[in-house]
């Protein structure tokens, strides 16, 4: 089947487990996130030109690409750092407004995040976001609701957002749970 005419049945491929690493440079106070594949997350601080990167947080996550079973089209999703479900914590946020509107027709809003610092190479295109949305809705076969994925650029002020990215925080922790 030709790519142009195919209605696409998406499938997750090239699934790689690894870590999402948040680093901070204490000289310029810039924050950067990156994906690190492999068994061990980076642990040491390091120098890169003017920057002095310190690891702030490491969480387990996966990265993946999507491919169409029918036509074989491959959509690399290198830019996707994670997904977050809008929990409506900031009434001023445009995503929250969208969420409230969509909730009536049982559409749940998820936000797709790229990497920091923000530039073209690190952000997902609108087209890829649409494909991602298609993929997850195809997987929700029996569902009476649908999902909607929007770009993180839509968030007004990230510092007011309390939602959490879907990733495996605390997985590596060896400390017993603090409270029972």
């Amino acid at each position, binding site marked *: 089947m030709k790519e142009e005419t195919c209605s696409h049945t998406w499938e997750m491929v090239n699934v790689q487990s690894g870590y999402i690493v948040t680093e901070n440079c*204490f000289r310029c106070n810039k924050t950067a996130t990156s994906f690190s594949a492999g068994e061990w997350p980076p642990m040491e*601080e390091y120098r890169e030109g003017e920057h002095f990167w*310190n*690891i702030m947080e490491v969480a387990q996550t996966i990265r993946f690409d999507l491919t169409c079973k029918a036509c074989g089209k491959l959509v690399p999703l290198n830019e996707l750092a994670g997904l977050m479900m809008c929990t409506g914590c900031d009434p001023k946020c445009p995503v929250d407004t969208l969420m409230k509107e969509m909730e009536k027709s049982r559409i749940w809003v998820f936000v797709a995040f790229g990497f920091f610092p923000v530039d073209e190479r690190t952000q997902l295109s609108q087209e890829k976001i649409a494909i991602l949305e298609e993929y997850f809705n195809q997987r929700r076969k029996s569902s009476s609701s649908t999902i909607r994925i929007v770009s993180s650029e839509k968030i007004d002020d990230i510092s007011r957002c309390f939602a959490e990215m879907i990733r495996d925080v605390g997985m*590596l*922790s*060896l*400390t*017993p*749970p*603090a*409270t*029972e």
Partner: protein
Amino acid sequence: MKYYHSHVIIPEKCAGRLKCIKACPTRAIRLRHGTITYYDDLCVDCGACINVCPEHVFAPIMDDFSDFEKFEFKIAIPSRTLYTQFNASIHPNQIHQALKNIGFDAVMDISRVSQELIFAISEYLKTNPKEKPIISSFCPSLIRLIQVNYPNLMELISTFDASREITAKEAKQEYAEKLGISISKVGAIYITPCPAMVVSIKQPAEKEKSWIDGAIGIKDIYNLILPEILQMNEQVETIDTEFHFHYGTGWGETGHLSRFLDAERHLTIVGIENIMNVLNDIEDSKLKNIDYIEAYTCPQGCIGGIFCVENPYISRHNAIMLERKFGELKLFDEAEVLKKYHEQYYFLGRHVLPRPTRAQAVDIGTSIKRMIQKERIFVKLPKKDCGLCGAPTCETFAQDCARGEAELSDCIFFKLSTH
């Protein structure tokens, strides 16, 4: 509750030498993932970290002289230690004059109140208080050490106020009346040998509010008054000879009190380790026949405070010379002091309260569970107390892990065995 402390941490300066972590007597400091942090509820402001750090990561927060401009009338209250920073050939009056030259309106020395206070304390001890020994409330760091590590000895802390506080109260009242201004317009500024005194002014553990309004370290004032004093040497005649200075009895140096109080029933301790040993003994009721304990967390007493300029041995020598020269004050009215004593003039008004300990933040069951986890972790640690995980000992590290504040993978020996 947030605890005020007399220093700030400047993490950028930290070179990771781990000296502070080991030096801290209450094990309050950690180096986690390259950043120095501390538990402010454990810090007793002893200044050990400030002292050992070559990079000056811990910076004392001191008042600046300009902070006192808001007062219409400024009274300097020098610690006894200030006088020991100078050779005994320099008359205390010269020091007082120099303080006035740099901007203070008056200077009040604490020796008269000190002497009255000791008289009152010896009177109090004669009444045979139930709880003994009484522990001097002079050293703020000592009080905090007892709050943090020895909560069951809280009742032993003397309920007498410190001489600097009473002096400040009297001076402020006196000048407010004399000048006919509100007492809030009169500022009392203590010249301190250590940062702990600053904490007892900003956030007193002993009472609601301190009478003192601010503090300047001896080190800072020394640089300002020394040139003034050097100039004065040529014109000694300006010195007021009527001034009754005496350097007899008081707190701050070891052994001064024992001469006045019954030496047989009086104990002087300096240095935090030594203090902890004695406090342990008191807890076991092992220490008998002692009525009064005078203790200073600094290694040589207040002359070893970190804001001191002079070598403590020389200070000690200066103190002896001062004592010879200015001896005891004979002029005080015993009957008057007794009257004030019976009117509760010298008392704090209440006992010092313990700080809630970290363990008490959770119920005993959870705490025991953590203890079991701690032991489980501890037995598997190398017990080398290397400090590379950022905790001072393997035991504290195990404790931190059980509390969920550190991760086992921070232990270098685990890392080594997995790489």
